[in-house]
């Protein structure tokens, strides 16, 4: 029995343990026991993933011989992650472990109930089995497990807040639409190849129309899970309403399963796709990146902002994938490999910083009960650890040195500008547009996260709740620190990470250079963050010397007020809020966002020339959701109404129905 199969068996056992713990443990220590078990499950997954990633012995895994009494050509279920699967298994495991630890301190009320922890365990298990599955049936089973677990978790707070129910409805509908699409797509493949194991399908080398049909169906299904525009609508609804450790797991790991699916379809199952597949993917991905970050930059609900930024990041990841496919089609293998590596780097780094960001948002929610940036502020003083970790993660999300996000985006840009479009019109037009959009996305991401961090943690509290914020429990802080460390670590050591990931997708030409730096001989580019830091330290040294000398001569003096033009009082309401911070942007992209503004001016009683108060309200809604989905929803409700009219509960009418049916049948038979 190989390491991998042992690992997967352990996961199954640990999941069972977690379930038992969740159901049997007494309420006061349930979170500790169940949380610990879930964390263990996560760690097991991570280790298994790493083993599989390093290519322990390929194909090895857990075989579950099943015989379903169906006429289907079912091969035995096989849980044997390949190297790519290993990457995502490790990623899911790591995220699950961190979020579970966080959950120990964070989960309260429904989230800490029996069903809450049980669902969490199921969710994690499903998430870790998806990349491990290497045949259609087990893949779909794992996929559905993941979906059910997450749906139950999402429902946790439905008692407290009514939005939760609506969010869950959206999520359930979208996630099942995704499942159906996948089912259809795989059905096509199975029908074509007559086998259910990925190996069989890949070996058969499906091509032609059926391949295209299958690819489009699969892409639709995976895109829905990955939250691409226009099927992203569940993200900004579900993420804010779920308990924060769950949203973290969903956004950082579950969404990635969509990415894994796309890679699985495009690289393993249908490797020889025509160019327009990549083109389609690229268009979708670019739209998601830009639209996601635009919405994020104007959002004021912190978790909604993070959700949209997830759409953006998934967009970037799939941009990398699509470019890799395009270049491969154009026969530019080396650069394509770089792009592919960039995709995986982006995936890992997003998992790291988005976990921390959502956990940080959870800590804020936990401390202040506020998600609305316009009512936060000054938290750095009262929540130092959260402030530090959230800041680091925000740097990562803004792709600034020396974080994981920076390294990843650097590799992506390198691959983009080195794709040669001189003899390929498609590339010549697509690559510049891609570079431009990616650059704009990066710029807006910068603004978004400066806003998120600056408004929430700096300046002065905008509400009493924010004033009395406090740090969360030990396990919460530990989880966030762990994640932040990962963000910095991945940023400092892009070399080994990139090399490992490149191995996993069989990409060549990624080399470790210097201490931990990464070198891309294919595009002769090189990045060594450690050296960069050293350089910075060297140039900073003399400045610091002068600074200290000056500090000894003229010490700092404290004054009571910030300079407000000699104003006698400074109220926190004078500060810029998240809304006002994004105001210029909203104006610039007025046509794209179409915000609804209304200004109420109420006059004083004495004279209508005196204004007693002005109320300004601005709402930016999700245009895609409004324009594309509302009609569908309305139509569905209409049908529901119709059905109700038919079915009005009168027994006679029902008897009438069955009688008519009977008569009709008889007529049909006698005909």
């Amino acid at each position, binding site marked *: 029995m190989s390491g991998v199969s042992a690992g997967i068996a352990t996961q199954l056992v640990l999941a069972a343990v977690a379930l038992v713990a969740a159901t049997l443990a007494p309420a006061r220590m349930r979170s500790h026991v169940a949380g610990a078990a879930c964390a263990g499950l996560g760690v097991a997954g991570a280790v298994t993933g790493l083993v599989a990633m390093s290519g322990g012995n390929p194909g090895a895994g857990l075989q579950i011989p099943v015989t379903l009494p169906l006429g289907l050509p079912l091969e035995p279920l096989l849980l044997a992650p390949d190297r790519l699967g290993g990457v995502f298994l490790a990623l899911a495991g790591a995220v699950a472990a961190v979020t579970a630890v966080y959950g120990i301190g964070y989960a309260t009320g429904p989230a800490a109930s029996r069903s809450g922890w049980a669902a969490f365990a199921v969710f994690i298990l499903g998430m870790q089995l998806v990349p491990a599955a290497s045949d259609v049936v087990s893949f779909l089973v794992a996929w559905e497990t993941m979906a059910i677990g997450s749906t139950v978790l999402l429902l946790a707070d439905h008692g407290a807040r009514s939005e939760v129910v609506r969010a869950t409805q959206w999520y359930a509908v979208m996630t099942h639409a995704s499942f159906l699409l996948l089912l259809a797509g795989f059905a096509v493949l199975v029908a074509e190849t007559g086998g259910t194991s990925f190996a069989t399908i890949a070996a058969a080398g499906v091509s032609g129309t059926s391949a295209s049909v299958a690819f489009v169906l699969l892409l639709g299904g995976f895109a829905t899970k990955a939250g691409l525009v226009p099927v992203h609508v569940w993200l900004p609804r579900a993420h804010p309403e779920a308990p924060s450790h769950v949203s973290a797991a969903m956004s950082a790991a579950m969404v990635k399963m969509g990415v894994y699916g796309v890679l699985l379809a495009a690289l393993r199952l249908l490797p020889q796709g025509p160019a327009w597949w990549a083109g389609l993917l690229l268009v979708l991905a670019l739209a998601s990146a830009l639209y996601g970050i635009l919405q994020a930059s104007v959002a004021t609900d912190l978790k909604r902002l993070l959700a949209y930024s997830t759409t953006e990041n998934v967009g970037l990841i799939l941009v990398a994938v699509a470019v890799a496919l395009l270049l491969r089609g154009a026969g530019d293998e080396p650069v394509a490999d770089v792009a592919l590596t960039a995709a995986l780097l982006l995936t890992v780094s997003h998992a790291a910083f988005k976990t921390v960001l959502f956990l940080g948002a959870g800590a804020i929610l936990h401390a202040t009960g506020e998600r609305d940036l316009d009512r936060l502020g000054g938290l750095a003083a009262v929540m130092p650890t959260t402030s530090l970790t959230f800041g680091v993660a925000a740097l990562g999300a803004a792709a600034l040195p020396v974080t994981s996000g920076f390294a990843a985006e650097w590799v992506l840009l390198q691959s983009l500008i080195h794709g040669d479009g001189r003899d390929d019109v498609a590339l010549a037009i697509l690559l510049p547009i891609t570079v431009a959009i990616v650059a*704009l996305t990066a710029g807006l991401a910068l603004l978004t996260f400066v806003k998120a961090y600056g408004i929430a943690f700096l300046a002065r509290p905008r509400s009493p709740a924010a004033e009395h914020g406090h740090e969360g429990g030990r396990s919460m802080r530990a989880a966030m620190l762990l994640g932040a460390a990962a963000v910095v670590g991945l940023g400092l050591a892009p070399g080994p990470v990139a090399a490992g990931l490149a191995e996993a997708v069989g990409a060549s030409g990624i080399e470790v250079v210097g201490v931990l730096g990464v070198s891309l001989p294919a595009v002769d580019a090189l990045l060594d963050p450690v050296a960069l830091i050293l350089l910075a330290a060297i140039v900073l040294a003399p400045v610091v010397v002068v600074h200290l000398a000056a500090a000894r001569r003229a010490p*700092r003096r404290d004054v009571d007020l910030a300079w407000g033009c000699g104003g006698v009082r400074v109220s926190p309401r004078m500060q810029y809020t998240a809304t006002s911070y994004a105001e210029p942007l909203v104006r610039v992209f007025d046509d794209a966002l179409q915000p609804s503004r209304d200004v109420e001016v109420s006059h004083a009683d004495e004279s209508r020339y005196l204004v007693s108060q002005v109320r300004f309200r601005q709402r930016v809604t999700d245009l895609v959701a409004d324009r594309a989905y509302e009609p569908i929803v309305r139509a569905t409700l209409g049908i529901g109404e119709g059905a109700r009219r038919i079915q009005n509960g009168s027994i006679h009418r029902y008897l009438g129905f069955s009688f008519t049916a009977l008569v009709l049948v008889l007529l049909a038979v006698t005909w």
Partner: protein
Amino acid sequence: MNTLTVPGLLAVQVVGALALTPILIGVMRQTRARLEGRAGGGVTQPWRDVRKLLAKEPLQAAGTGPMLSATPLLLITSSLVVCALVPLVGTASLATVPDDLFVVVSVLLLGTVALALLGLESGTAFGGMGSSRHMTIAALVEPTVLVAVYALSIPVGTSALSAIVAARVQDPASVVSPVGLLAVVALGIAVLAETGRLPVDNPSTHLELTMVHEAMVLESSGRDLAWLEVGSWLRLTALLGLLVNLAIPWGVATTLSLSAVLLGVAAIVVKLLVAGMLVAAGEVFLAKLRLFRVPELLAGSFVLAFLAVTASFLIGGAP
């Protein structure tokens, strides 16, 4: 021993930039003053200002946090690193830290972000306003910068600035090629926006409501302010220097021999001072754009950059 090592060259660039920057700003102010019919404070005035600011006590208002003292050091560090990386004097670069454009831009942005956070931290209306505008402009400049350098990097096949400049020294024809021209013009506009010059931001305004950069540093004083000033001046030096070296690459040292480096120093000093005078003179004729007209300007520069890329791909304008 008449050749330098690469670190030596970088040291020359950093020290040189530190020494030259106040003079550059002084020259720009002096030019402006003369064109306005004033006598002006002399080219060494910025030096005196900085010296004085270092001797003064910084103030810290209650409720402001660590950024107030951290930002100045962050900003000047990022500026100095950029000065070291950008090929100002010579085109040699460290093996472990190549002057890769994306790295340079990110390091610059680190300073930008630090400034924006400083502005938000003060908790006053002006700080937030400046910060918001600053970040909006930074976000919109990004595409221009990257696409412009993308255009420049296509013929060379790398995004390392030194390689690009070196290639332009070797092949002067590429300097006047439409691709080169378009890209450099686009980059120029981006640089003006990035360093807060007219017509995007007015560096010498006293009216808070029209401020972008100034509004963020309203709260800083003493040595904090000194570092902030020097930091943003250094940004100007580095970016303007890069621009002139791209537009007029001659004189840049392509070898490390002492004579070449000396020539390079002389060349960059002259180029920078002349460029500074031109910018200042141009500013006399310009009025500040309304904030919401700025996107048009940036869109224009972006179009130029984009045309440069497509041109170099489609008519193969680049050798």
